[in-house]
């Protein structure tokens, strides 16, 4: 079965640089969520999109932005990177309003040096 695809899987950036993470949801899933998991931490909700509109916002820094495109893939743009942004970034998708479970991608490990 198709799963959530995230790219790249690993990314190394320097402080103050910019990064773009991509997420391709499971086909026919219309809702995408982004989570950040710091080292030894539990995942924290960042932002979500439903039908290409932002549906909820969590603890996402102003330096980050995201959008969902017409093909339902989503991109998380991160600017002015800081050392503390080093984390595992997960994307999850949900099959529709009748479903509650989210299916997670493998994550993108971002290292800021």
């Amino acid at each position: 079965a198709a799963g959530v695809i995230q790219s790249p899987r690993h990314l190394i950036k320097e402080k103050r640089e910019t990064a773009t993470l991509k997420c391709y949801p499971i086909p026919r899933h219309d809702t995408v969520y982004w989570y950040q998991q710091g080292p030894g931490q539990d995942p924290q909700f960042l932002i979500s999109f439903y039908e290409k509109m932002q549906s909820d916002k969590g603890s996402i820094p102003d330096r980050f932005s995201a959008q969902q495109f017409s093909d339902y893939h989503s991109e998380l743009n991160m600017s002015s990177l800081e050392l503390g942004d080093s984390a595992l970034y997960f994307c999850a998708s949900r099959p529709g309003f009748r479903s509650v479970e989210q299916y997670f991608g493998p994550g993108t490990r971002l290292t800021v040096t």
Partner: protein
Amino acid sequence: AQSVTQLDSHVSVSEGTPVLLRCNYSSSYSPSLFWYVQHPNKGLQLLLKYTSAATLVKGINGFEAEFKKSETSFHLTKPSAHMSDAAEYFCVVSERPGNEKLTFGTGTRLTIIP
């Protein structure tokens, strides 16, 4: 506001013995509850979910959980641990219909002793 508390940060059991990972939740609404598992350097895999149907929920790999509203608990159990069960387990709550952002517990690291 919704939250979950995982009562043990680390659980060790011997292979072949029962597993119990404890979780208590707090929610203003009727919550949906999940257990996710994360193996080292891997993504999050859904083990099972509760969505106001049967209170005893069966998941993958022999795991199950029981929703107890009176105790606000959703403990995860497995009759017989296997070495491959060693991982981090997250109890997760989703509350408000229409969005369902997930709130994670702090995780329980399960170690299996050979």
